């Protein structure tokens, strides 16, 4: 069976050159970077070269990069670290309603420890309004965290403006750029953010390794206690193969971002256009223009997302959904709900995220498969039948079925 991977928002395959760069560090180069002998020095050299490459790709200084175990740890370190370091100055924190759980749940945990958290709302496209940030800022605000690009709906936030507002007020600004790196240009020489999280596996690097950019002079507490690695900010013997992989991946990721993004956005728009044109009752979620070049998120009405994913998977198409039935918690995606979608529309969400290996043929093939799956599921969907009945004879049509509660 032909299989097409359209879930690059979840993770990406490693670039062959990344694997090649990593291999020696599983073999000959095994030293501990903290050892002073030649084995250790060899490892240390690779570690610091990786730090330089990573910094260069972001417009940062090598001393501003802390390697972590991934995006989740980078987010936790940034938020908990600032909260701890500045708790004497103030206890008010601001974030947005559509952050990844790595950010949102960290703030939630802090709110149970005596911090006050303000959640900025988003408009129906998932966009934060800078005016809302201005009104939310207080004298005791110590940190603002807004993601650069949303992982579900792909909406790009006005980070430039939001971070500038915070800079002028002297409030730290953190951004989760996990989905953005490699997809939109990031230059930390110009962008006034104080902390930025990234994760290698989202840009064709290895899993389990990420980094936190911490602008020089930023006060930051720590999560872990131990040895002196990463300037004591993140103790523990470094994941050297992973770090070398991250550095190679980000080096490759930032080459010609505008060119790569334009090509991918063309493919994205072809996919969005086909879905909207060829299937009835489909809506695009997220911003029509300010969105990640590879992100497509649609709600296909009267079809439930998990069932659709399952059907697509059985036909070789790998996608994801914000449906309650996929979440385990039985709650639909907090991102879609924050955009004002009703439960049913959120229930039918389908996320397709493109990667560099996808082609126009992949997209067209996927559309054909999706059309077939949607038709099959709608044929047995109570909600679709009700909709058709109402549509076909608006006079006699029954009322639309409401969600009847089970006792």
């Amino acid at each position, binding site marked *: 069976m032909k299989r097409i991977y359209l879930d690059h928002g979840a993770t990406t395959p490693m670039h062959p050159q990344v694997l090649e760069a990593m291999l020696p560090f599983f073999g000959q180069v095994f030293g501990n970077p903290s050892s002073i002998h030649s084995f250790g020095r060899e490892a240390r050299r690779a570690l610091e070269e990786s730090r330089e490459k990573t910094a260069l790709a972001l417009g940062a200084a090598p001393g501003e990069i802390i390697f972590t175990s991934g995006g989740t740890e980078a987010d936790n370190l940034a938020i908990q670290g600032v909260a701890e370091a500045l708790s004497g100055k103030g206890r008010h924190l601001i974030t947005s309603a559509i952050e990844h759980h790595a950010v949102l749940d960290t703030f939630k945990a802090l709110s149970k420890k005596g911090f006050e958290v303000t959640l900025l709302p988003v408009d129906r496209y998932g966009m934060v309004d800078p005016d809302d940030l201005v009104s939310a800022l207080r004298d005791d605000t110590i940190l603002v965290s807004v993601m650069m690009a949303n992982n579900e709906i792909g909406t790009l936030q006005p980070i430039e403006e939001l971070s500038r507002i915070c800079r002028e007020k002297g409030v730290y600004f953190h951004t989760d750029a996990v989905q953005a790196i490699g997809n939109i240009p990031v230059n930390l020489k110009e962008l006034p953010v104080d902390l930025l999280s990234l994760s290698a596996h989202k840009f064709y690097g290895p899993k389990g390794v990420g980094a936190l950019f911490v602008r020089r002079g930023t006060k930051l507490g720590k999560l872990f206690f131990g040895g002196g690695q990463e300037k004591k900010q993140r103790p523990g013997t470094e994941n050297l193969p992973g770090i070398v992989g991250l550095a190679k991946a980000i080096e490759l990721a930032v080459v010609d971002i505008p060119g790569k993004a334009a090509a991918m956005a063309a493919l994205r728009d072809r996919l969005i256009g086909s879905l909207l044109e060829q299937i009835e009752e489909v809506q695009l979620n997220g911003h029509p223009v300010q969105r990640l070049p590879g992100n497509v998120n649609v709600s296909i009405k009267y079809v439930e997302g998990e*069932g659709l994913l399952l*059907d697509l998977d059985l036909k070789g198409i790998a996608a994801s959904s914000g449906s*309650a039935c996929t979440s385990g918690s*039985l709650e639909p995606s907090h991102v879609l709900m924050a955009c004002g979608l009703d439960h049913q529309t959120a229930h039918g969400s389908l996320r397709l995220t493109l990667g560099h290996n996808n082609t126009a043929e992949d997209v067209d093939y996927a559309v054909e498969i999706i059309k077939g799956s949607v038709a099959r599921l709608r044929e047995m969907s109570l909600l679709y039948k009700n909709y058709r009945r109402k549509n076909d004879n608006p006079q006699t049509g029954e009322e639309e079925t409401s969600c009847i*509660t*089970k006792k």
Partner: protein
Amino acid sequence: MYNEKVIDHFQNPRNAGEMFDPSGVGEVGNMKCGDIMKIFIKVENDRIEDISFLTFGCGAAIASSSMLTELVKGKTLDEAMKITNMDVANHLGGLPEAKLHCSNLAADALHKAIEDYRSKVQ
């Protein structure tokens, strides 16, 4: 995540579709996850002669609707009233933990359909 039997019922649902002129209908929804299903029955001589379903829901919801219809076709109403959601899940060879309460509503819908029929013939 799902076993082969669940996948089979999801891919090849038995008795899916609307029934015209049913003897009774029952509809249940799960407010929490939003799944919703409707069961149609045709009753003759106190037996379920025919049954069908319409379901908006996840793979587990569709598979349990299908399994239920297969289980009760030909049964007497009293026998059918005894079928539980758990029986349906067991006949499917089990459902994932998270799906048990989410999608397993088919027996409730059937019982409502039988009650609907009984209230009409009385």
